């Protein structure tokens, strides 16, 4: 989500550094092999490609997601394996 994190570039980086980071990221995620990854990188680059956009990003925040439903993907939960006991604890407590 954070374009600086996606491109692995410092928030104070200039145009050249951002472009170099973009090209490096595209090399790692070429559009033919990883279209989703490439799209993510492309969107990140579009958001911070020049000083004006980086400034707007810092001042006014990221652009909104086009679809409201994408909010759920943004906030989607991690799913950790915790073993059976934590699950069964719920039922033991319920009995008492």
């Amino acid at each position, binding site marked *: *989500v*954070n374009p600086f*994190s996606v491109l692995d570039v410092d928030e104070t980086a200039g145009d050249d550094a951002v472009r170099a980071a973009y090209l490096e990221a595209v090399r790692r995620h070429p559009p033919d092999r990883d279209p989703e990854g490439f799209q993510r990188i492309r969107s990140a680059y579009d958001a911070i490609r020049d*000083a*004006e956009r980086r*400034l*707007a990003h*810092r*001042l*006014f*925040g*990221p*652009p*909104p*997601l086009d679809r*409201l*439903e*994408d*909010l*759920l993907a*943004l*906030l*989607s*939960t*991690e*799913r*950790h*394996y*915790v*073993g*059976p006991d*934590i*699950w*069964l*604890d*719920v*039922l*033991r*407590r*319920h*009995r008492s």
Partner: protein
Amino acid sequence: MAKHSKSSGRSAASTITLDPAVCRTRIETYWSNGKTRDALDLAKDFLKATGTAEAEGLVLDAYEAHTRALLAKRMYSEARNLASTVIERFRRARDRFTPLVRQAEILAAGDIQSLLAERDTATCSRRLELEAMLTREVRDPRAIAESETLREDDALRKAARTVCHLFGAVTAGPVPAEALAPLSSIPRHSPLAPWKLLIRAIAAYYRRDDASVLANVSAMPEDCGPAPLAAALGVLTADVAAASDRARTPEVNNLLHRVSGGQALRQLHATRLVRALAARDQARATLSLQELLPHLRLCSPSIRQTALTTVIHHWTALGLSPDPLLRALLRDNRDLDGLRFAALILERHGEWPDAVLAWDGYRAAAVRAGALPPAGPEMSRLLLHMTELFPSAPADILNEFDAESEEELQAKVRSGELPECMDPGHLLARARAAEPSRAVFRAMVDHYDQRDPKTAEAEAEAWRRAHPRDLEPILYLIRAAERRGAIQKALAALADAEAIDQVNPEVRRSRFRLLLVSAEQHIKDARPDLAERDLDRLAREPAADEGDTSAYLLVLRWAVERTRGNATAATEIEDGLTARTGNPGLAHLIMTAVATSFGLEEMVNRFQIPSQVQSVEALARAGALFRKLGRALFVAPEFAARVERDMSGVSTPHLHALCEVGLAIGRYSLTYAASGEGLARGTTLVHRFLLARGRALRMATTHREHERAERCFRAARELAGRARDLEAVREASVALKQIAAEADVFGFEGRFFGDGAPPTPEEIVRLVVEERSRRDVPPFAVSPARRRRRKRAKQQRLFDDFMASLEKDL
């Protein structure tokens, strides 16, 4: 005995029947409806009323049914107390109720082993009862798997071992689907059947197949032993319907927290918010947002900002009120982000004065907190953003603050009646002080261009000094000098622009425009040599060969020769002009217009008489030429009338040019006729002809024609959108706004007809057919330009001879 409101039972007693068969039927009806308490009350009233042995039997049946109902509801102590009381009152029922007391005690103690032991030797019906109890009571399958009561090879015990193994596996790590195959051997009526469903649901949860989770969970009985885990899975998968808001136990919260990494409730509230917004349910959306906000605060700033910006964006797009959104955000978060989001909400809802104030509040707070440097690009950009929120028309700003003039607005700011941030000029000055960027200078020049041209020029000069390689301020200074008639100053600025970029298209256009003005000025000043020098320089410009421009320049050379008094050279040029244009009508129109502007109209010789087609084409081409050069075209009414009579031989682009000529010279009947002819052709320019038709009709004097104009504009906008002619879309939208504003003035509430919805294709076709079949010419108002021209009788006389010969030709 448990306390119970006997209202329903007493009500039954008030209509107590003494017929045992009827009473039993009513009691059985209560049982079938699950109302065992009411059945018991009725039976007790019946016993009281009759005192028969049959009634006592009925009461005992009712007591047993109610005791079993309490057991099913896990109200074990209540069931035991009830059964004990029955034994005390009805000694002969001891054998019947003692097992129930024992069963209640076993269940209260969670003694699964006793149930298993009894199941082994029970009758078929009792066995079913016991298995139903086991289904409700088994909260850990190990109790069966490790039971010493059951034989090693007991099917239930073997199934329990499978359940224990797979439950441990699916909660500890990824499990392939085929590993769950042994669950299929557990029958649906088994006490372990809910566990089978639970294991499948958990496995589906970890492979993110939430639909399968919900399918399995919804098949589990509500009162089964593992049911609380079904509810927890509902929360984990953000299943709004399944997730209950009842207070959760610490164990449930621990499970949710550990499994979801602390995000389960965030996802649940986000799902509720998305669904509420999709349903445009503002109250539920507000509630869900309030519940979601504390969870968002725990997210990374990037996720939080994207989430809130998205919510604000879609909230606004749905047209919901901003107030609950503001309250929720400001209540949750009074820090800088809260202020920033409040400003964004107001901005997106078009509340520009409040948005500017909110941004100013954010600016001050951010500077105080050290989050925003008081100078530099960020501050400059923020102040510039604030000025961008103001309406573009100065009058709209003045209206908002009840000020009559810029001076009054500034006086209000100086006196403190309005905050400083309400003066865009003040904000721009601060933005420039923070960082004199191009964007700020551009905004400065734009701002003062309409208000104070001198200041605008001074800002453009400052821009030029701050960014010496920028063409934009120099081009502005050229235009400004040109507007004031300071051609030499404009030419000096042009030299600076050419030193930066000689081939820039805008620089070249400026050069052509300035040389043309300079040449015309020199002719007016009777300085033919200087004019000729300008014309020589103009001839070297690529634009000199575009369209009929060369003909115009040739006529300027004619004016130079006339100024010199060189009649021979002038006549040669006149002779060559018809050849250059290929149309004697066009030659005459250009010559007349130029000669009139220099007071040389008496020196124009007669041209060859043009045909009807040539006349129409001449007017179209002259209109396009004079429009491109920004010069006024004079057309004699008779000439225009002749053109209006028959346009059949002219090309479609020329027809469109005629529409524009009619509007430019204030002869709306010409536009009306040309657009009608264009509509009859059914070309791809239909939207353009509808637009022209609407413009002409707008100038008519009757209300009915104004309604037609609005229909034409709306159809033109629709068709232009489909043809991707964005310029026409914009022009039609502007025209519609103007017509709505005029309607407001006259009290027509901004619209003459219709509901504002875009016209359908069928409506557009009907309109085009209707418009092209109209032969009547509406009464048009006389334009100010035409009124002025009426005074120019001298010019009119020039055409008299020419038109007389035309009429003779006709």
